[in-house]
């Protein structure tokens, strides 16, 4: 037996110990908590070197349960402790600076409805881990993250669609479903990354419903021009005085609707009587927009027809596009509830459509071709008649 053979067992043990020492960074918690370890390692914390003991404390190097769990160890199974424990790092400017993450999120959270209820001892309200996950915390940019914009509605819905839970707070469990049916939800679902999710209006960590008088500000954060038009118009003051929600009165809250111009009358009728001046105004605005759109649609049809006949249509196409921009502008200016600003842009759109039509009609006039065809047929028939006569004569002459 060689030396190696004799001491084989010893060599294995030494090698194992050496490997353990080399891997001292890796904590031993996973030996007893394999599921949590797997989850943790898939998350961003593990990737950034945050270890079990950074949250749970205790002795990560020990393979003995008692020794591992001694000292300042905390299980964090008390939900109330979660926000504060996260804030130990996330409110630390030194630690957060390299990631350019804000350090005021804990403070903001304590002002939110969630934070206030938790502080008041109501542990049914959301804490950090309810939205971000427990061990497997992912970056918000990660599409698998529950806080990724496209997953956010269902994440909020875990509590806010729970009818039993929401009834305790006198909240509607329908809002997430409503949001998903609305234009914002549909746009996000359709892949528009700029579409708003829950937090766009309610705030992220400081989540709270916007106050009645703040709705137009919240909507106006994205719909800036619309808000400006709205403030210029008569509705702004009047609705504020009447104490009705500004944007939501027509567009609804969570199930945000963007109605077609023809629905304007119906929506107006909710407040204004049919014979009122306002009803006439809505009719007028609708007609203006409809006329402009119709003019552009007809021009676009003609352009498509011209394209099939190999005409140069790029210029016409861009003019129609310009017209469509004016119509979009008109839909914004409708919020002034005044005719002049809307008519100003719809007239331009309509004029563009008509201009394109006139120019194309002149280029696509098929009358000469049809007249030519008629003439051609005239000669065909004439030729046939002459030939028939010649044939008769020839037959008569020969017989």
């Amino acid at each position, binding site marked *: 037996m060689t030396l190696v053979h004799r001491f084989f067992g010893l060599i294995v043990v030494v090698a194992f110990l050496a490997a353990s020492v080399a891997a001292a960074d890796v904590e031993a918690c996973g030996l007893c908590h394999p599921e949590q370890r797997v989850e943790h390692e898939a998350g961003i914390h593990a990737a950034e070197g945050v270890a079990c003991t950074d949250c749970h404390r205790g002795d990560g190097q020990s393979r003995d349960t008692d020794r591992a769990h001694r000292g300042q160890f905390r299980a964090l199974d008390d939900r109330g402790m979660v926000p504060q424990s996260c804030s130990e790092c996330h409110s630390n400017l030194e630690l957060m600076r390299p990631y350019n993450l804000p350090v005021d999120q804990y403070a903001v959270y304590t002002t939110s409805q969630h934070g206030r209820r938790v502080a008041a001892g109501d542990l049914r309200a959301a804490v950090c881990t309810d939205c971000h996950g427990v061990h497997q915390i992912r970056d918000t940019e990660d599409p698998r993250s529950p806080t990724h914009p496209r997953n956010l509605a269902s994440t909020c819905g875990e509590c806010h669609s729970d009818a039993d839970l929401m009834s305790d707070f006198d909240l509607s469990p329908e809002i997430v479903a409503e949001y998903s049916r609305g234009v914002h939800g549909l746009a996000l679902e359709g892949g528009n990354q700029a579409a708003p999710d829950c937090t766009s209006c309610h705030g992220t960590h400081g989540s709270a419903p916007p106050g009645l008088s703040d709705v137009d500000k919240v909507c106006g954060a994205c719909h800036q021009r619309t808000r400006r038009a709205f403030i210029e118009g008569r509705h702004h003051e009047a609705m504020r005085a009447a104490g009705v929600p500004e944007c939501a009165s027509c567009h609804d809250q969570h199930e945000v609707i963007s109605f077609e111009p023809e629905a304007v009358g119906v929506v107006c009728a909710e407040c204004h009587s049919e014979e009122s001046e306002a009803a006439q105004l809505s009719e007028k605005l609708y007609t203006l927009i409809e006329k402009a759109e119709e003019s552009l649609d007809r021009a676009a049809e003609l352009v498509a027809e011209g394209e099939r*006949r190999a005409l140069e249509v790029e210029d016409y196409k861009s003019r129609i596009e310009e017209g469509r921009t004016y119509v979009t502008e008109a839909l914004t200016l409708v919020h002034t509830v005044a005719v002049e600003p809307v008519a100003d842009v719809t007239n331009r759109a309509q004029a563009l459509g008509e201009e394109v039509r006139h120019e194309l009609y002149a280029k696509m006039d098929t009358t000469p*071709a049809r007249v030519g065809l008629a003439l051609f047929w005239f000669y065909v028939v004439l030729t046939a008649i002459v030939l028939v006569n010649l*044939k008769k004569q*020839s037959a008569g002459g020969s017989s």
Partner: protein
Amino acid sequence: MSDLERPDRETRSSRALDWFSRRINLTEIFSLLTSYGFYYAELDTRKPLREALAEAESRPVGSYGRWPRVLGLFVVVLLWIELLTGALLALYYLPTPDTARASLGTIMRDVDFGWLVHQLHFWGAQMLIAFLILRLVIFFVRRAYRPPRELFWVFGAILLLVCFHLDLSGRALPMTDHAYWSTVRALEIAGSVPIYGSLLLFLLGGAGTVIGELTLIRFYILHVAVLPLLAILMVYLHFSGVRRVGLSEIRGERKVAGRAAVRGHLYNLAIALAVLFGILGTLAVLFPHPFRAAADPYVTLPGVGPPWYLLSVFGFLEWASGALPRQVAGGILFVFFVLFVAWPFIDRGDSKRGRVTAWVIGVLVLLFWVIFSLYGARVA
């Protein structure tokens, strides 16, 4: 007006003819020029023209200006229209993928009457193929391919196949989205037929599913040189057959001879052709083939099938794709087309049983054509 009333003109023109006849073989030239269906009797090219014509006129022939024989003339005239309009289009068409569509745009937009020439070329081709198919169906029904006219059918069938290829290669040339994907579908069909398919795809550059510069120029060469020559050759062979064995017989027809009879046939023909021109012009003006968007080889245009006359073949391949390997289905097609061309030698239908068999086969082929065409249109 008989020629006797005009002795001056007669003598002057005949003197000129005789002068030429002594120096060149006018009869041979006349024979060649009229070999495309304008003169049906055989000419003795050793004799001077006037003598040969007088002799030919004395042989009684059936009218070639009457239905359904006039279809043959329509085919020839349409073929010449295609050659003429095609030559005009070739003055402006630029056969590279980048310039093809733009040059067609120039033809349709900027060139005087370019649009008309383009539309006549397109509709002429569609009418040509329709008439060829109709003609073969009537040929089949009348069993006009019985000996000694087997070759009429063979040349007619080959001409139809050549015209399919002419139309296919022509469709690819504009490089518009519809043209492009329609051609790709047709090439996929061709590719599934053994021997022929691999030969064609090899000839076209082997790619088959992407039409690049080389493929396009090969399509162009096929379209403007190789295939037209083949078509002209087929027509020539067909009519030389007609001259040798005579037109197929129509029951109850009285054959007449003489100059007046020949002139009468020509008048009938001229009237029919005038109407044909009228129809072609109407289609070209009132139903213009659209100028479509540029082709993008990387974006399959949905809903584009092969051209109408290949829909049945496409339908068959699609239908068979579930049950048979593609090469087997293609093999069936190959055998079918060979049998189609060689049909007169297969049909032994002079007995009553043979005639019934021929009828059943004819009806079945037509039925399958219609069914698979409808299926193909639905799949596409």
